[in-house]
């Protein structure tokens, strides 16, 4: 039972990383129908960046702040320089294009930080032991980041006029225009959100899972699987899906074989695509004319 809880706790914290990435993916998908393969690379970029800043002598909070802002800007720059340059960007083309972006980002990270995994110092706090289940303080930070950052994005989209308009803008650009957001601005906002949540996921997870140049792809794809569980539309469903994915992976690693852990997400993806290609949540107004 202790093991079960231990694995569950580890799965939830891992799932919170997927959840943040899923939030970013949905943000860009709902606005531009872009599936951003580079979403996970934002996380490693922020992780490696903050590690360098810390080792340069900056205090941890400052380093993290700079990393968050930089990666958010990087995401917007990518949107301006690459994504917005293609007219009539279909989802299929967006996948190929962002695959290029992801490959480029990875190569830059490889050349800048080298091939080895690096670790950000753990955030302040002491580890807990609850009835034999050891919970690392960093895991609480990860869940906390999901609540604060993910929750913040959720509130923005569900409670503010801007957010609501943005969310509908892929299908109804008019809605965004009414509240004064041009399609270009909507796209920039979406990529800024994607960059920020990706960076947040990267810095909170680095002390446990480490940051390595090539790690973003798989991370982002798992976030994507969670987003697909939410029909690439529902933030709530995607977050729940992400946490479930993390826990399921943890059980597979613990009870089946650790090597199969990374396959879990893709089995889920294929099964979902076969059974319910629209995701597990039905969109409102899903009528197609």
């Amino acid at each position, binding site marked *: 039972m*202790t093991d079960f809880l*231990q694995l569950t706790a580890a799965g939830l914290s891992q799932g919170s990383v997927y959840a943040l990435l899923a939030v970013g993916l949905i943000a860009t998908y709902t606005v531009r129908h872009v599936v951003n393969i580079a979403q996970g690379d934002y996380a490693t970029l922020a992780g490696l960046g903050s590690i360098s800043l810390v080792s340069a002598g900056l205090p941890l909070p400052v380093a993290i702040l700079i990393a968050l802002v930089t990666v958010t800007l990087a995401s917007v720059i990518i949107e301006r320089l690459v994504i917005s340059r293609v007219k009539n960007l279909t989802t299929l083309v967006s996948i190929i294009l962002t695959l290029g972006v992801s490959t480029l980002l990875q190569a830059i990270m490889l050349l800048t930080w080298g091939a080895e*995994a690096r670790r950000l110092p753990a955030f302040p706090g002491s580890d807990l032991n609850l009835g034999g289940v050891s919970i690392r303080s960093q895991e609480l930070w990860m869940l906390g980041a999901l609540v604060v950052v993910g929750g913040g994005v959720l509130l923005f989209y569900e409670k503010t006029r801007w957010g609501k308009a943005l969310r509908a803008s892929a299908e109804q650009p008019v809605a965004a225009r009414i509240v004064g957001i041009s399609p270009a601005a909507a796209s920039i906002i979406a990529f800024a959100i994607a960059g920020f949540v990706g960076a947040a996921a990267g810095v909170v997870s680095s002390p446990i899972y*480490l940051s390595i140049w090539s790690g973003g792809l798989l991370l982002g794809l798992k976030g994507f699987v969670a987003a697909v569980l939410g029909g690439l539309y529902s933030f709530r469903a995607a977050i729940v899906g992400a946490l479930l994915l993390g826990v399921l992976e943890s059980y597979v*690693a*613990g009870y089946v*074989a*650790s*090597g199969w*852990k990374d396959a879990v997400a893709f089995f889920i993806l294929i099964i979902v695509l076969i059974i319910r290609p629209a995701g597990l949540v039905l969109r409102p107004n899903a009528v197609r004319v």
Partner: protein
Amino acid sequence: MHRAHRRLLIPAAVAASIALAFTGCTASNFGGDNGGGGDATEEGPIKIGAVLDITGVGANLGVPEQNTLNMLAEQLNEEGGINGREVELIIEDNQSTEDGAARATTQLIENDEVDLIIGASRTGPSLAMRPLVEAAQVPTISVAANAAIVDGSEWVFKTAQNDVVVIERILDHAEEQGYTKVALARDATGFGEGIAELITELGAERGITLTATEAFEPSATDFTAQMTNLRAADADFVIIWGITPSAGLAQAAYVQIGVGKPVYQSHGVANDAFFEAAGDAAEGVIAPMGRLLVADQLGDDDPQKEVIDRFIADYTEAYDTPPSSFAGHAYDAWKIGVAAIEEAGTDPEALRDAIEATSDFVGISGVFTMTPENHSGLTADALIMAIAEGGRWNLLEE
């Protein structure tokens, strides 16, 4: 017929780009004169090829090995080569992959026609190379550990201490402490394969039973699940069997999850990179390894001391950093190979026989005595027990 002209374009472009790519080259691409094997001529430079894990998960092993070979080749050529012939060292990176090793080996055999191959750094790539060099009959000295590399081989040798003797040293030590149950977390690649079986077999003689086995990828960064299972296992002590950085990261997770039992690691962590990866969690870990890392603590009567001290001095001068055990494996492979060439020349069979005749060769990893049946040449004496203390390996007082 204008249309037809247009259709010419793409094929023509393909042709042009290909033709451009292949201008001005005249080398033969149809293999050597003796069917692709080593070149037996006694003229021109002696070619020694190396296939190492210079990038990828084995980089902590391959890079110091590469450094060592480059340094030794330079020294040798400064001294006039082997019997007056220059030595050409060709190092290929296998990117820590099996197919990379096979591709590099094929390249060395078919295009470079090397006389001797050194490598690979890890067991998996070494196993991948084995059928190729056996078929081409090129003497090869691996610097990886698993005994399967040389088990029954005709052309492959190795210089790293066998996993069998490493496990024997660990189990002997554990038996002395009165432990009877062990749990294992092993590298999922070739280096860790067969380890569980060996522990079961060798443990039986010492009253030690293996109660749990976990595996981890050398590229892994998250070890929570494995360590949770180790914690649940009914064991007195734990063996973590891997290379750095993964074995170091596993060690860190081990402490974080709070398994709290004594840990033995393998000779795969005999470098400073282990301390970088494991941090404070390294403290108190015991591992059998060669004498290199504890050279300053060896007695003056140690037969290897002189060789080791000189190697450390040379390497540190050349690269501003002390050598790891893996550098030592490469040193031994080079020295054994070169000595055999000096004696037998580059005829493959004669060279192989000369390597098999290596006797009482004092190297970095131990004193080697090879035979046609024993292509490893080291005994348990090659190993000392070391303990991690204060960010370095120290000789464990027994």
